């Protein structure tokens, strides 16, 4: 296993100036892929995901000393990653002064510009369906579908009740199904 240390050990090491950098590096390595893909599913483009991920970890460095260990590290990291992704998308929207639907079309267009894109393949239709969702539903769907996150954890990440998340996931799945059947 690449990262045998558990979160508690990593946090302890981070508090020690002598091992702080090593611990931070280990935290990044432990969570980088999961967070990268979580962010990338939101922003679609690799370079955007890279910017968001790096900014996110810089904030983690600054905030980790004050991290309250009553919440799980990975939940906290997902929350920061989510906030950073939403902030990025919001800034992008303002920059381009586009409407919500235009922005969503923009993300779909980014998908379509991928060299492997095939409109006839179900997998790509699924991706387009996901990108057609409003931001919050997209978050809920991808966290559940790809990250297999329990509603209880998701509730901590998104600050929404479990009931609302279940409803949101249900609506999202139905909308994607409709999208696939009608496109």
């Amino acid at each position, binding site marked *: 296993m690449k990262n045998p240390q558990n979160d508690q050990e990593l946090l302890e090491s981070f508090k020690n100036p002598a091992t702080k950098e090593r611990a931070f590096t280990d935290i990044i390595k432990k969570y980088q892929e999961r967070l*990268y893909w979580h962010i990338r599913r939101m922003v679609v483009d690799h370079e955007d995901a890279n910017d968001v991920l790096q900014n996110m970890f*810089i904030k983690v460095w600054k905030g980790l000393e004050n991290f309250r260990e009553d919440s799980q590290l990975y939940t906290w990291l997902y*929350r920061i990653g989510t906030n950073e992704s939403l902030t990025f998308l919001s800034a992008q929207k303002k920059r381009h002064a586009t409407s919500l639907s235009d922005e969503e079309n923009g993300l779909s267009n980014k998908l379509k510009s*991928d060299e492997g894109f095939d409109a006839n393949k179900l997998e790509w239709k*699924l991706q387009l369906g996901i990108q057609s969702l409003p931001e919050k539903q997209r978050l809920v769907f991808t966290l*559940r579908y790809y990250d297999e996150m329990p509603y209880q954890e998701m509730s901590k990440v998104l600050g929404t009740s479990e009931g609302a998340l279940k409803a949101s996931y249900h609506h999202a*799945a*139905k909308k994607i199904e409709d999208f696939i*059947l009608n496109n």
Partner: protein
Amino acid sequence: MEKNTEISNELKAISPLLAEIPRVNIQSVPPGYFESLGERITIYSLLNQEETEEDFKTIEAGVPAGYFENLSDSILSKVKTIAGEDVEEDYSVLNSLKNSNVFHVPKGYFENLSDTILSKMQQKEKTKVISITRKTWWKYMAAALIAGIMLVSAFYLFNLGGNNVSPYLAAAKEYQTSTQIAEGIASLNDDDIISYLETHGNITDNDAILNNIDTDRLPTEADYLFDNNTLNNFLNKINIDYK
């Protein structure tokens, strides 16, 4: 990867069509991308914009080779740059001074420090101050308001003199000392105070409200993004009515 059965069944119930779609990541990178080490990309890869951009230009989709392997070093170097630390600078003079300590510490200080702190903490625990909570602060405000009105009324009435004794004078005479005032306030129940404030009171003391709200528990910016009812929920939670 095997799907979590519970999540898989849930999706099957909502949409059998979606449940049948293979959960592959179509934006994933070619095999070996994550494992292969990008030796050419050093710790300063992201600081060296020209090289980085050149590397990224060659890849239109997916993740550049070695991206994840070097990510932590790249972020760490950025953090250092932001913090004003330059890892390449020679701090040999400072390093040589690192182990010398000009400050004097009483003998045995560190050995007993934890005991001293623990003992102080225990003392503080015994003399713990009970703070005014959000739920009770308005009672104290109301009591102070009523006490103030009583004192002012008494002052005016006793200084007016004359034979025209208003009904208030008789009442005010009952509250001439602080003990009498305290007893008078104690005899009021919550309903009387609320009723008085509803007809006469106007709580507009923003400082008092702000001082009694724990700002650490205020919703974050993101909470408002996620839930339109965030403000309502927060106000309900702290038990403040608004109209």
